């Protein structure tokens, strides 16, 4: 697609429920990132996928958080047994190839999924 698409744009859930957030990156982009942005805060790195390599999960805050990327394209971030502190905007971004010193490798961000846990 022309840009990074995220769904849902807004999700309100009850504490203890599971939620799934979807990211559809730009076609051809091999790198995909998930970040979390709490109200008025900066961006917290969650997880990174590059091609078929094992994902870098070092930013996931707890084992309630997991993510998959199927076929090197669409990614799903799953939060199990949601807590109120999970309320935030979850941003997805993609790029053509990260860490390439000869290129700019600018991340293109989606509009985000705003999660509210009651």
């Amino acid at each position, binding site marked *: 697609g022309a840009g990074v698409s995220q769904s849902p744009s807004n999700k309100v859930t009850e504490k203890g429920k599971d939620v799934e957030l979807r990211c559809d990156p730009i076609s051809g982009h091999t790198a995909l990132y998930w970040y979390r942005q709490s109200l008025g*805060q900066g961006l917290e790195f969650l997880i990174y996928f590059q091609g078929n390599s094992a994902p870098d999960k070092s930013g996931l805050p707890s084992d309630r958080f997991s993510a998959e990327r199927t076929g090197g394209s669409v990614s799903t971030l799953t939060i199990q047994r949601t807590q109120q502190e999970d309320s935030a905007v979850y941003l997805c971004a993609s790029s053509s190839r990260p860490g390439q010193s000869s290129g700019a490798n600018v991340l293109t961000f989606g509009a985000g999924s705003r999660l509210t846990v009651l």
Partner: protein
Amino acid sequence: ELKVEQNPLFLSMQEGKNYTIYCNYSTTSDRLYWYRQDPGKSLESLFVLLSNGAVKQEGRLMASLDTKARLSTLHITAAVHDLSATYFCAGYYNTDKLIFGTGTRLQVFP
């Protein structure tokens, strides 16, 4: 782990004035990025600084990179209201993880 710190965190400035936002990072990162975020919106790329001494300018914004000092600056010249937004710098850690700074919230008033 790369740490990226910005200051100030909040900046209120009058139209027409100049100011600089500072971005310090803790370990080697040969590229530095600046992004802008409008309230309720996602992030938009502003500048990519690829080497020591790099300087990029667009309109009233100018960004520079000093890899030896591990410092990047974003200079605002003759601020206008349309520049009101939150500005983030970011650097790559281990060539693949983009780490963002805390952000600087800029408000420009008449």
